């Protein structure tokens, strides 16, 4: 006979009640796990997307700079443009290593699928160090570089002449295919900037400029210089670090919603555990009296009921983590419908710490919830407990 066995046997007495109580804890843990995994996944995804953009600063037209940055990350048609001549002024700022001009546009084909075209110059390769091109970067008119997803979707090969989706029967030749980057680049079609400007009818215009600094520690200085240049009034200069923080803040409402759900679920689970153990104490009052007569101390009785609470919470935590793992895809799909900006890659990415925190929270709630009933059980005087009507020892 061991303490664990003694408390485990209680599951046989009220299996339904214990299961419902455990399910309550499991739901709370699942909500918390999803929240933490989302917080981590979103942050990691956003960081990944920004890193793969390869720039320290993004220069966009006047308007909401974060909407514009979001367009640059996801790919879309832009509502306003920069003058191409601003590029010279940006490049003239001291400390700029690379200033890569971009003209982006998106078309929808007959099936409703979006194709994003990105016009760039050869210096884009200096920003995209993670790119591996099968073939070569577009160097001649009409050449295109396609992302891995585009190649797979259309089953295009290097050297193939293709009709550009969404355009008015315009054609191009695939000069290169990007190896998968796990970013939005996988879904883009890159072409020469001059080709894009002609194709989209935006000659001498850009949608944004990606800027890499010689020394990222001189960010503040570079941003001030860019804002102070002649074109400074017509463009927004957005450091990526600010963008990361700002977009992160935009999803705070979703995070707060999830946190609220997790908090309420934990409160309900705690109340459920407490109530369940309280009922067990009431039902087993005479048993408690018998155990006290047999030599159980106050602390033995406390330990018995408290360990029972811990078992419920541990099992609930394990079940909750498993439930959340199984439901991660559903949660992710739901989150994507709610978020103003969802980075590529998985939004729900757990760390080892996520599971540890969930177990710790479940045990903490169990400890608090189990304290009162366990204390009440332990405080029962043996003679009072023996004469109680409750229980059937």
């Amino acid at each position, binding site marked *: *006979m061991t303490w664990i066995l003694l408390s485990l046997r209680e599951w046989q007495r009220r299996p339904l009640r214990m299961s419902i109580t455990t399910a309550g804890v499991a739901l709370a843990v699942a909500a918390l796990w999803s929240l933490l995994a989302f917080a981590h996944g979103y942050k990691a995804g956003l960081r990944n997307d920004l890193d793969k953009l390869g720039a320290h600063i993004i220069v966009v037209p006047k308007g909401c700079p974060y909407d514009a940055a979001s367009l640059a990350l996801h790919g879309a048609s832009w509502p306003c443009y920069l003058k191409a001549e601003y590029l010279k002024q940006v490049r003239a700022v001291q400390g700029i290593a690379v200033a890569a001009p971009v003209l982006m546009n998106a078309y929808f084909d007959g099936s409703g699928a979006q194709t994003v075209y990105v016009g760039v110059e050869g210096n884009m390769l200096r920003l995209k160090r993670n790119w591996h091109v099968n073939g070569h970067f577009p160097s001649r008119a009409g050449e295109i570089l396609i992302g891995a997803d585009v190649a797979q979707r259309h089953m295009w090969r290097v050297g193939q002449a293709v009709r550009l989706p969404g355009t008015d029967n315009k054609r191009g030749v695939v000069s290169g295919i990007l190896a998968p980057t796990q970013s939005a680049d996988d879904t883009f079609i890159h072409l020469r900037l001059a080709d894009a400007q002609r194709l989209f009818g935006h000659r001498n215009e850009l949608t944004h400029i990606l800027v890499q600094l010689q020394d990222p520690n001189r960010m503040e200085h570079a941003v001030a210089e860019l804002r102070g240049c002649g074109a400074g009034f017509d463009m927004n200069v957005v450091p990526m670090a600010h963008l990361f923080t700002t977009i992160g803040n935009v999803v705070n409402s979703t995070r707060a919603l999830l946190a609220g759900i997790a908090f309420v679920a934990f409160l309900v689970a705690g109340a459920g555990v407490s109530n369940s153990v309280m009922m067990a104490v009431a039902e087993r009052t005479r048993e408690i009296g018998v155990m006290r007569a047999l*030599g159980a101390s106050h602390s033995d009785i406390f330990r018995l009921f408290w360990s029972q609470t811990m078992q419920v919470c541990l099992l609930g935590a394990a079940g909750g983590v498993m439930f959340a793992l199984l439901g991660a895809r559903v949660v992710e799909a739901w989150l994507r419908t709610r978020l103003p900006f969802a980075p590529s890659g998985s939004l729900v990415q757990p760390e080892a710490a996520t599971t540890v925190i969930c177990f710790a929270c479940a045990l903490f709630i169990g400890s608090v919830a189990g304290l009162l009933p366990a204390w009440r059980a332990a405080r029962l005087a*043996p003679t009072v407990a023996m004469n109680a009507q409750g229980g059937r020892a």
Partner: protein
Amino acid sequence: MISSIPDEYSEGAFISAENLCKTYRRGIEEVHALRDVSFAIPSGELVAVVGQSGSGKTTLLNLMGCMDVPTSGVLRLGGQNIGQLNEMARTRLRREQIGFVFQHFGLLPTLSVRENIALPALFARRRVQQRVDELLEKVRLTHRRDHRPHELSGGEMQRVAIARALVNSPRVLLADEPTGNLDSVTGAAVIQIFQELLRDGLTIVVVTHNAELAAVTKRQLVLHDGKLQP
């Protein structure tokens, strides 16, 4: 039949009481459950506590079992004044020197026979596998070792309760109406076990209405309205 035996407060008595009183409060009413009760029970005796309902028998048993403390007077068990012991010391005394048998058996329904018997050893932090097997043999329930209480007859449940009371090798066995829920045949089997335990040198105090059980005791404490009758 004995009642008050002042001369036997002397050494040698395993349990002794001197002017023992226990008063309860029931609302505004004071209930004198025991009044000036004095007696002595030497080691190795089987003593019956008899009396009508409400005469104070169970109160006396609870005091002897360190489940409660006297309001006044002195109650000694194994030389220790129970009234002066704190809760922890009384629990230790209960665990190490006292075995309890209840009218309603008090078996835990979720535990097997063997686990029920081993329960007090868990509280005493002892490993008692062999002792449990010996006791199962003693109460002739080896074949029922893995059964649950609801699978046993009343007599078998009481024999399990007796084995449980003995698992920590106590010096005294306190039984509250041990045959109260049994028919005469199974009650006789319990009485037979008590007689065997008596031969092993155990001190046994039983609260009983059972004439057969009272008849085999060497002494009886007769209580009436909380007082020991001469």
